[in-house]
């Protein structure tokens, strides 16, 4: 490349090799031959959502809708009505502008459409508050019949990608923008509607999804060094929530901390609280964004600023344990 060409070629930063969006895009492309009815819908953002891999491998099944998410979302319902399995891809925040299309033309019409949203939460980073969807889990979870999934690492994302294609029904799934930390090996088993206990403990249970799973694992180590035994549950399916696993955790550890890159209302914390309120209520602390919008910054800086990092999860665990003890005394 000449010096002039080098100057003229922008350095692309959209694609991060080990991000969840890339894991999703690569897996989808790899398995697409086994799913001839799968088509991908894009709103001019394939480089960001990971489906540029699919566009390259299966151009005949890639449909461009331009920057027009409402039409794309409802059209997906129409494509599904003809027997295809459409995967709607865009950023989580733009899924929010088409929630009503997902409601009427997909869920209410009982269409087998998969909505895969990249760039959720503070994990978006420097694009700032306008781009950081902190409400998407709440919005999609409130739609009857909608399954909501937020995997934690690349291996789980690959398995979830296969699982949602094998599942008959509408799904909203979060991927992620930034590099993700590998948590699981090939022996991991993702199943829709099931959580997994990653670490056992007796004093408190940390329930997390998405980027917060890695932080919850670190928080448990931190707590262990302080003599507190914390159980860690990975909860990749927020709806339907794994109620039996939560009930067991509540009974055996007596208090819960939820951790998510989402607003404190209506997300994983809400789902856990609703479930336990109906079975085995216990003190619950919520690690989440405290009903404010985000701002520009690197994902780790933002996690620290909005109190989503391991020390804050550990602090929430100590509060939950204190409440449990106060109740029992």
């Amino acid at each position, binding site marked *: 490349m000449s010096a002039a060409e080098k100057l003229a070629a922008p350095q692309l930063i959209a694609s991060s090799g080990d991000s969840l969006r890339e894991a999703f895009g690569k897996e989808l492309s790899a398995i697409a031959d086994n799913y001839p009815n799968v088509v991908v819908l894009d709103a001019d953002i394939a480089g960001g959502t990971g489906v540029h891999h699919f566009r390259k491998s299966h151009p005949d*099944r890639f449909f461009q809708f331009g920057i027009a998410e409402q039409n794309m979302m409802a059209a997906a319902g129409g494509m599904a009505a003809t027997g295809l399995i459409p995967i709607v891809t865009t950023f989580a925040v733009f899924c929010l502008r088409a929630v009503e299309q997902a409601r009427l033309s997909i869920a209410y019409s009982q269409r087998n459409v998969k909505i895969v949203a990249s760039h959720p939460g503070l994990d978006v980073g420097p694009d700032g508050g306008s781009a950081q969807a902190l409400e998407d889990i709440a919005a999609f979870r409130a739609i009857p019949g909608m399954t909501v999934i937020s995997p934690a690492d690349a291996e789980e994302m690959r398995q979830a990608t296969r699982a949602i294609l094998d599942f008959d029904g509408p799904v909203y799934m979060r991927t992620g923008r930034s590099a993700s930390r590998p948590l699981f090996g090939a022996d991991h088993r993702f199943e829709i509607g099931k959580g997994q206990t990653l670490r056992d403990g007796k004093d408190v249970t940390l329930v997390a999804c998405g980027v917060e799973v890695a932080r919850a694992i670190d928080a448990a180590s931190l707590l262990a060094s302080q003599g507190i035994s914390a159980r860690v549950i990975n909860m990749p399916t927020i709806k339907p929530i794994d109620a039996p696993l939560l009930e067991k955790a509540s009974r055996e550890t007596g208090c819960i901390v939820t951790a998510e890159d989402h607003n404190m209302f209506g997300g994983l914390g809400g789902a856990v609280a609703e479930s336990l309120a109906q079975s085995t209520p216990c003190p619950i602390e919520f690690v989440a964004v405290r009903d404010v919008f985000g701002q520009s910054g690197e994902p780790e800086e933002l996690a620290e600023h909005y109190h989503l990092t391991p020390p804050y999860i550990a602090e929430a665990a100590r509060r939950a344990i204190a409440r449990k003890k106060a109740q029992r005394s």
Partner: protein
Amino acid sequence: MNAGLQLSHLSSSFAPEDEFVPRLESCARNIRRVSVAAIFHATSGHPGGSLSCADLLAALYGSELKLNPDELLSPDRNRFVLSKGHAAPALYATWSTFGLIEPQVALTLRKLNSRAQGHPHVVDMPLAETSTGSLGQGFSVAIGMALGLRHQRNEARVYTILGDGELQEGEVWEGAMCAAHHKLSNLCAIVDYNKLQSDDRNAAIMGLEPLAQKWRAFGWNTLEISGHDIASIIAAFGEARGAGNRPTVVIAHTVKGKGVAYMEDQPLWHGSVKLTREQAETALLSLGTPVAQIKELLDVSR
């Protein structure tokens, strides 16, 4: 009761061309009568926009859609989506008129546990093809169907009726751009252009003109016809099939409340209204309904 005209098996015997159009005009009259009766029994519903699209529906079902009960949901069927879902009374009345559903179902409009929901619901009524009722969405779903069918090399066509007020939804113009970009020649949209919407005339709420120019600028084969002239409507569908690589929009000029003298062109009768017995009888008389059929339509207990 016999609100339907029992035409279900007659579509192929419409053969004598000179009888075809009068036959469908008769269907349209029945669609209007059953719509009014359904709204009377429901004590709510949108009469104005149901009456304005009755001829469009009669022409669509009479000439473009399969009426054989065994083929209603066959993969190669032409699809129809009522994007202006608030005209559901007319849709159910159409199915009833063409013998596609039991006539009494249309008269259970808006009742608890009825399949005839206030707006069409595909899970209860597969003939609806998709659930509608939020303006703009049915149009996008129809675009998705047209794309999906063509992708699978299925030659079926997709029809959709939009309201004029519906065109104020941004999603419609997202879809208009999309359908032209993808050259969806298997798609035919029909605008029920009755010039009125919920609160007032289109022109007073949010003007649509120059409407045909807008569609042409978006790349659509654009036809303008009277939406109450069955022969013109059917001719437009024929023209749409030869539109090359463009989608077609048929701007159908209609009169809101068509056929019921006191409702015609009155914005008041757009919204969900309750009809008194007297109003319903007057409306049915205005529609030329025989007295015996009026009794039959209004006296049935549901």
